[in-house]
């Protein structure tokens, strides 16, 4: 039996898992239209490579990865590109983003696919394929998988964790996937193990999913994979939390789990990876939980680009008196602004709200420093202090209290007896700090540019003066006969003044980086100068010697 490590804090919100686990995964019927956003992953959005009117096939690349942190985007079915334009996307802001709108031709023809011989392929070529095939973490963060599957030149990653904790209430897509496709998940993990050079594979599943644990344990037999039931405690499925729970290794603040030799993947990602490699099929669908105040809650194999409204219809539609939808779980998800927004790689759940399940937030009261937030914080921060400093815009202090170690899990807000929307304050502080950082960088750049310009102008002036002086001296030498000429004397004086000025200017534009040095650096420079002078003397001496 593996020794488990309990992380600090955490909360026990009502699970509400049973609502959507009653039926097996259903496949969504083909829709007449899909809206596929080009930004479905963390990093740079994909660049559209189709234009209106183009014919596309299922699995055809329609968005090319752009930059390093980016993955491809593919057509969910065959049809015609209607438009490439901003459309509503599932984002807390409710803003539109660039999407490829595809009108389905109903034939659902696919591009030619071929399995990848992953054992024989060069690892870097394999990773590039996965990048093109659009693999990104399906747990919600949608970080490009090919980057996480790169162990790096010297880094050794002995432990691979498959995250099946699914700690957020309501969501059951990983649960159903593990129940129904356990062997495929583990086959995907096998490929991950190969790519990372990992020895140990652990699967962490919260103990409120006994069916999934049983299915995974049965499938794990003989594979050298250990399936571990962990306590149901939100946010036990957080990357750092599950790493600590299963291995006792503490991911350093601001660091990654790979810093302690652990890589974590969501079970859905492992399954998608298998599909990509075994079937050669790019990421064009995922399992989405539809639950809450709907007629037939359940899990649906949903093509990316499916409008939320269509998915809700597949679940029988909303019940009367629904009060909107949440994308993701109730602890970290966000309110949906427009039902036309499509399902993307990051959308694992759509919860339809009603007033009883999700009552309006009570009005906030003053903080009474009860410390409940600090006891609930899995990052072991002091949320009440962060709140205080964020509220008073003392952003320096928020950073001393480790604002950026906050994972925004929402435990503090969940327990706060004063109903203060704490996480909102931290998001505010973080974005303020980011935008200030950005402004500062822009200002620094502008200052540097200005300084260089001043330097350049001064240098040109000086060069001009030197040139003038040179010309004058040439002319002077030419007219040496008239040395006694008062005009020549005046010119000579002028010339000397110009030379002096040029020298002064030269001194003035000495590079700035040797000003205001700390004493030790200054000493170092002095020593170098002294050596240089000595060397110069020695050279001179040698020259004179040679001349003799």
């Amino acid at each position, binding site marked *: 039996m593996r020794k488990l490590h309990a992380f600090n804090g955490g909360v026990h919100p009502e699970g509400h898992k049973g609502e959507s686990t009653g039926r097996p995964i259903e496949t969504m019927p083909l829709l007449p239209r899909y809206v596929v956003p080009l930004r479905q992953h963390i990093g740079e959005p994909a660049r559209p490579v189709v234009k209106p009117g183009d014919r596309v096939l299922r699995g055809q690349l329609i968005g090319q990865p752009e930059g390093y942190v980016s993955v491809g985007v593919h057509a969910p079915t065959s049809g015609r590109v209607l438009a490439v334009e901003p459309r509503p996307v599932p984002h807390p802001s409710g803003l539109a983003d660039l999407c490829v709108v595809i009108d389905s031709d109903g034939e659902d023809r696919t591009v030619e696919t071929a399995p990848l011989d992953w054992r024989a392929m060069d690892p870097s070529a394999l990773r590039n394929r996965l990048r093109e095939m659009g693999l990104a973490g399906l747990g919600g963060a949608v970080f490009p998988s090919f980057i996480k599957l790169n162990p790096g030149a010297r880094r050794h990653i002995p432990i691979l964790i498959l995250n099946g904790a699914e700690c957020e209430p309501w969501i059951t897509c990983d649960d159903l996937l593990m129940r129904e496709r356990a062997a495929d998940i583990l086959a995907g993990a096998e490929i991950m193990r190969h790519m990372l050079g990992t020895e140990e594979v652990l699967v962490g599943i919260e103990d409120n999913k006994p069916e999934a644990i049983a299915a995974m344990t049965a499938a794990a037999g003989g594979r050298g994979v250990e399936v571990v039931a962990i306590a149901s405690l939100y946010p036990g499925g957080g990357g750092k939390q599950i790493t600590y729970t299963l291995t006792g290794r503490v991911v350093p603040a601001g660091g990654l789990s790979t810093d302690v030799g652990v890589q974590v993947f969501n079970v859905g990602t492992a399954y998608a990876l298998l599909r990509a490699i075994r079937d050669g099929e790019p990421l064009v669908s995922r399992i989405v939980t539809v639950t809450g105040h709907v007629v037939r809650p359940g899990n649906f194999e949903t093509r990316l680009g499916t409008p939320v409204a269509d998915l809700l219809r597949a679940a029988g539609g909303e019940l009367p008196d629904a009060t909107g939808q949440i994308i993701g779980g109730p602890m970290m998800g966000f309110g949906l602004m427009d039902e036309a927004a499509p399902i993307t790689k990051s959308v694992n759940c759509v919860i339809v709200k009603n007033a009883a399940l999700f009552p309006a937030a009570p009005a906030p009261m003053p903080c009474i*420093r009860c*410390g409940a937030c*600090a006891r609930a914080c899995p990052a*072991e921060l002091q949320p009440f202090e962060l709140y205080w400093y964020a509220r008073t815009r003392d952003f320096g202090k928020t950073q001393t209290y480790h604002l950026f*170690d906050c994972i925004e899990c929402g435990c503090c807000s969940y327990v*706060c007896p004063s109903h203060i929307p704490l996480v909102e304050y931290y998001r505010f502080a973080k974005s303020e700090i980011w935008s200030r950082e950005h402004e500062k960088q822009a200002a620094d750049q502008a200052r540097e540019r200005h300084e260089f310009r001043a330097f350049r102008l001064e240098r040109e002036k000086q060069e001009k003066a030197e040139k003038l002086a040179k010309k004058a001296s040439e002319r002077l030498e030419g007219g040496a006969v008239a040395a006694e000429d008062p005009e020549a004397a005046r010119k000579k004086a002028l010339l000397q003044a110009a030379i002096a000025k040029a020298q002064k200017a030269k001194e003035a534009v000495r590079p700035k980086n040797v000003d205001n040095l700390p004493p030790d650096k200054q000493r170092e420079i002095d020593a170098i100068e002294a050596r240089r002078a000595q060397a110069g003397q020695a050279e001179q001496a040698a020259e004179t010697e040679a001349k003799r």
Partner: protein
Amino acid sequence: MKAPIELRSSPHVKRGVSVERIMRNVVLALLPICAFAVWQYGLSALALIVTVTATCLATERFFNWMAGRPGTLSDWSAAITGLLLALTLPPAFPLWMGAVAGFAAIALGKALFGGLGQNVFNPALVGRAFVQAAFPVSISTWVPAFAPGRFAEFIPTTFTLPLMAPPDISAWAKGALDGFTGATPLALWKFENQVTPPDAFLSGAATASAGETTAVLILLGGLYLVARRFMDWRIPVAVLGSAALAAWAFQLWDPARYPDPGFVLLSGGLMLGAAFMATDMATSPVTPLGVWIYGALIGVVTVMIRYFGGLTEGVMYAILLGNALVPLIDQYTPPRVFGDVKGTKP
């Protein structure tokens, strides 16, 4: 017309605990203590508790009105202040002085700082400190518990006219209970080196403020709040533990002069202070280490004041001193964050 957009970020669910519920439970835990005080001291104690609490509520409402804010009586915090303050006053305390104490508690102790959660000091103790300075005689005039006529008549001082000197009641007190000295156990010990046996504290027969002699009920109330997780158990444990430890050390040093730790714990207001006043959330530290430092400080300072100070009782000033140090304690005892390998402190 489209419904207004509700901008609300995660989490979308909340645990059912609210400030109002915490405070209501504290009131609930205090009620048995109040009831026992009335049983001990009769009509005067009841009148005092009602007057002080009503003044606190009225003052809170007045300042709500002054600030143009919605009423905050529903959060129950002013009621706690009123009940606690009444329990720390002598039962014979004139009602008008009790009203002054209630006003001072809310006005100086709370409203001046900005209301709930903003106050540096425990408001009830601010009120008590105010009247201790303003009315030194009345605050140290004691009456016997379980006087025979306590439900038939008021103590003569109760209805003293405002700004008038209360009548001398030493004769009345002697009449009410034969051999009554008018001294608290702490004063008896301090000036006559006479240690009151512990059963007097448990039965409520000891001379004290209205709510201080009911160790059993205080413990029960505290346990209730701890069990419901509305109270940090570490603070009373630290206060009582450090006071006992200090008392024990002194007794080891000079057993003839210093009383046993049990007497130190049960006498005066230490139990009430440790359980209900030092634990006030707004005025106590939050960091795990800070809580112990704060509690230990209060316990030790209480014993120091009792043994070496001019006053017979020291809990009030010890807690106020602890309150004043809370920001410092919190600042210097931040817990290590998860993943902080180097252990850097803010």
